[in-house]
């Protein structure tokens, strides 16, 4: 099996500015005293072609930060990510222009994603078909319902053909039939041996769809391995967490937070 994404000692820190003034001082290399938040702390993992990796963890654990780093949307503060292939982030609602029609938006978003004129011409009919929007495709997007908008965004994102896919939004756009269709599309990607990163709180979906899982807690990689093994651990934790009193939960979260904050 070929390695597809190698994450080496990746950390991501954010400065917790409390005012514009501090931001400016930082910009001028005047080093104001600002606490640092360790969103991710030295994460390492190797993912192979055909792996479908679920990123699980409670809210604020750093899943989205990691998926943004893998998708090359933000750069790591230290460490390195090697990607063997083209990576695409499925961002359903990003890159749509409300004033333009659905059809124009297909070209618009494909352009933003960096596709050539020829390629856009080639895939436009497929996108139109997948989106199930019918004649609404000629209407400006601002007249769409939120479900229709998601359908269009999703159709554009999946019709392109990247090697590595990052999904940081639930696959539950539109109605049930469309959700099933989206999942089938994902299965198709899986069969083609693409690498997929999947952020989800729907553990049932994760068990069905993913082959591996990475459990992230407090910005650190707590466990990484076969999906069932990790999910059993994670679910056991969630079960225990749910039995705690509000006070206990709060202390636990506070502790995690304090470990990530460097004053």
């Amino acid at each position, binding site marked *: 099996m070929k390695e597809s994404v190698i994450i080496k000692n990746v950390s991501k820190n*954010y*400065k917790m500015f409390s005012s*514009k003034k501090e*931001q*400016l001082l930082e*910009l001028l290399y005047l080093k104001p005293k600002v606490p640092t938040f360790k969103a991710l702390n030295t994460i390492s993992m190797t993912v192979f072609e055909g792996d479908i990796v679920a990123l699980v963890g409670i809210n604020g654990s750093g899943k989205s930060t990691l998926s943004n780093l893998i*998708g*090359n*949307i*933000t*750069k790591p503060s230290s460490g390195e990510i090697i990607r063997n292939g083209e990576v695409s*982030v499925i*961002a359903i609602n*990003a*890159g*749509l*222009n409300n*004033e*333009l029609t659905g059809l*124009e938006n297909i*070209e*618009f978003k494909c*352009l*933003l*994603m*960096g596709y*050539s*004129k020829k390629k856009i011409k080639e895939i436009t009919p497929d996108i139109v078909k997948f989106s199930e929007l019918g004649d609404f495709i000629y209407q*400006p997007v601002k007249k769409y319902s939120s479900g229709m908008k998601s359908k269009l965004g999703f159709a554009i994102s999946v019709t392109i053909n990247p090697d590595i896919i990052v999904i940081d939004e639930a696959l539950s756009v539109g109605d049930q039939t469309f959700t099933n269709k989206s999942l089938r599309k994902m299965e198709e990607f899986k069969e083609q041996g693409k690498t997929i990163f999947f952020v989800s709180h729907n553990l049932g979906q994760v068990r069905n769809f993913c082959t591996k899982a990475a459990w992230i807690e407090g910005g650190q990689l707590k466990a990484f391995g076969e999906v069932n093994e990790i999910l059993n651990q994670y679910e056991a934790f969630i079960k225990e967490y749910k039995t705690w009193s509000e006070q206990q939960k709060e202390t636990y979260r506070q502790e995690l937070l304090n470990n990530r904050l460097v004053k």
Partner: protein
Amino acid sequence: MYIYGLVKEQYKNKYLLLKLALFQIKSDNKNNLLGVVWEFLNPLIQIMMYWFVFGLGVRGNASIEGVPFVYWMLAGIVMWFFVNAAILEGTRSIYQRYHTVSKMNFPLSVLPGYIVMSKLYIHIVMLSVILIIFWFGGYLPSIYYIQLVYFIAFTYLFSFAVALLASTLAAIVRDVHLLVQSALRVLFFVSPILWLPNLLPESIQKLIQLNPFYYIASGYRASLLYNDWYIVTHWQLTLYNIALVLVLLIIGSSIHFKMRDRFADYV
């Protein structure tokens, strides 16, 4: 050199740039009943007002350096509409659109690039209309139109250089947009767009010449009305202004490329 990276990025994405510029004009005007017509109607109304106040009111419709005031003003103001819109919109380009493109690997210097390009499209159409007016007024096409092409290209580069720098700074500190707005307002009145500074003391005239709008406005007029090789007859100004644009591009591109990985923290 960052400027090399900038040129490469703009060139590599030229199709993207040209196409997004068209989409921009389209989406700007979708809500208006008259659509794109407003892009021309608005300037027309302004031109009428300036003609009325500065041409008829202040000057009593006297000609200016041998050319009727209205032609003289048109040749200068058409350039102003382009630069003003390109720089103002260009300054806002990054912070307004960052969220649209942040989830994709979008070459960020294309944002100010395509905004300025969309204004260039409109400028070309507006300039064509003015050329036809000039032909009817007896100012016929000449070899000097070659020089006009140079000045259009120069104006584009100048607007882009300022927009790149200003949009990068405005992404970090929003106030830059207000600063640019005020600066443009001042420059409009100290540039020879509605009046000639020939009554002012010599030293102040020299100072006004350092303003790039002086060079551009004079260049447009020399090419359209006065049939003069302005690039050559005022070669000092040509050199000065080209150097100015280069410096702006060098500063703009280095700040842009150094800062753009961190825009997410500021926008």
